[in-house]
């Protein structure tokens, strides 16, 4: 039976963020969460594989206890079990330690996986690093930014766009892919699925002890990178306001900013005045 693992992350719903654009402070603990958009595409890819080949989907997420919500949502979409990695010791992990912790949990809960699917990047920290680093931790073949997958026996054929090249790749499973948001438009969540997900959910909670790991290996402490400071870029925009008839404003726009626009499009937009007048 095909054993699929999907790693997803709960990210803050920005529309709901208690957000102060002047000070750049976020109170993330107050924010409502959602499944990171790219992770939802990875879920959809896994669900389509399951529909075609049968099998079982285990979903892993790491986060605060409230992140359990995304496992229920995944289950409502059609996945089979959820594993929540939650522990105060795990908090503040950078991508390297996140990948390490996830790998430990995958090897504990789903050691005989065939394919791990991740979203290609998260909308909050946008590193796109956890997927590739998980490849290293699990020591399997892997490819990032895949938009098409096809399973033939134990061979996974993939397509991706990488720096203006379309690549067709193949690897033998077990392996890992990260899925872009280009294809695999996620399905809507059915309400019966939600009801079922809360009635009989198969969710395992895992803490540091369960993985046999202590503080020295986890979270902020173990992370090689340290965040010194987070701030909101204080772009001092002049905010010039132009008003009037469209024709006049267009002329004014070019008169004043023709270099800016011309520079960006690499064209000379100057008009010889003598032709104009």
């Amino acid at each position: 039976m095909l054993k699929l693992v999907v790693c997803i992350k709960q990210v803050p719903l920005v529309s709901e963020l208690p957000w102060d654009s002047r000070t750049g402070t976020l109170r993330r603990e107050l924010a409502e969460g959602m499944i990171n958009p790219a992770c939802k595409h990875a879920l959809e890819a896994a669900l389509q594989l399951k529909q075609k080949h049968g099998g079982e989907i285990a979903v892993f997420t790491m986060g605060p206890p409230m992140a359990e919500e995304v496992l229920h949502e995944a289950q409502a979409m059609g996945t089979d079990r959820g594993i929540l990695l939650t522990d105060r010791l795990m908090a503040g992990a950078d991508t390297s330690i996140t990948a390490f912790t996830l790998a430990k949990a995958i090897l504990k809960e789903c050691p005989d996986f065939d394919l791990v699917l991740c979203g290609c990047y998260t909308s909050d920290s946008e590193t796109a690093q956890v997927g590739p680093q998980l490849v290293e931790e699990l020591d399997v073949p892997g490819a990032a930014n895949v938009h098409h997958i096809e399973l033939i026996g134990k061979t996974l054929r993939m397509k991706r766009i990488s720096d203006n090249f379309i690549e067709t790749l193949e690897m033998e499973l077990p392996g890992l892919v990260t899925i872009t948001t280009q294809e695999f438009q996620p399905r809507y969540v059915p309400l019966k699925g939600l009801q079922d997900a809360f009635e009989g959910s198969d969710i395992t909670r895992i803490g540091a002890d369960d993985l046999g790991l202590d503080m020295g290996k986890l979270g902020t402490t173990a992370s090689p990178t340290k965040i010194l400071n987070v701030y909101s870029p204080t772009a001092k925009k002049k905010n010039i306001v132009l008003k009037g008839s469209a024709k006049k404003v267009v002329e004014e726009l070019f008169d004043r900013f023709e270099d800016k626009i011309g520079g960006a499009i690499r064209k000379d937009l100057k008009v010889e005045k003598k032709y104009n007048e």
Partner: protein
Amino acid sequence: MSENNRSIWVFGDYRNYFQNRVTLQLLSRAIELADKISASVCAVVMGHDVDEYVGEYIAHGAQKVYVIEHPQLKNYSIETYSYLMERLARIYKPEIIFVGATMFGREFAPRVAKKLGTGLTADCIGLDINEDGLLVQIAPSFGGNLLAEIITPESRPQMATVRPGTFQEIPHDYNAVGEVIRIPLPEDLPEDRVRLISTERWRKKGQRIEDARVVVCGGRGMGSKKKYKKLFELSQLLGGIIGATRPVVYAKWVDEESLVGQAGKHIRPKVLFSFGISGAIQHTAGIGDAGFIIAINKNINATMMKMADVAIVADANQFCTALTRELKKRIRS
């Protein structure tokens, strides 16, 4: 290790024009930073028939170039290249490694960092050396609406991927001399577990919106699907890419792939035109890195207008028509 053995490495990414440019840009910044920690600047080049790039990197400031050349390395491979990079780094122990944040670099660097057990900061838009001699990596999050300063205090090398266009390359100097260190392909190189079946240049859609120098975004204020179509002509004139807000994508005026914002693409154009967009956070979460913003909206108080460098109070659709007409005139002349 003695001071003068310190080095800053730049991964020689050369697969296409833009990838090659980011390598040159990184060399330029590496030279400035190397000065502060008295390090040398090295490039690492892997592949086949790469002499051209070796020469180019020396001309752009690399004091030393490590080269692994072999027909087997003809195609870019994440697994093989990261394996080799780890071997080199373990032998020569660079202080810092920079990798261009190209699609390849963004997959390659985390693999290398993990193999070396060190930290990595993604997609930096600024790099500096602090008073302790540590690399300060400035990385955006939430679509550029927040910036973080990150260091790697203990592990080495310190690693960062850097966005193309962040730094200016220095002019080339073909009289510059650099040391070229050729390293043979290890005999015990493991077989690549990911097989490249085919690769072709991707031309269909031209540039990606994430890389576009000009983006023309339209929102509901354009009025209708028909009127929205006018933006395509304008965008084409500007050599730009169309972007959209969520309501417009939902209304099927434009495809999902044009969606800019939290759930869509994060863009960083030099110039962003924003037509009839109110500026909901779902959208602005993706434009924090835009350079010069020109917003057009009937409502002067729309958030988008306040974020703009130039806020034009006008009907988005009428202004689009006028701008297109004028632009045609100017481009012709």
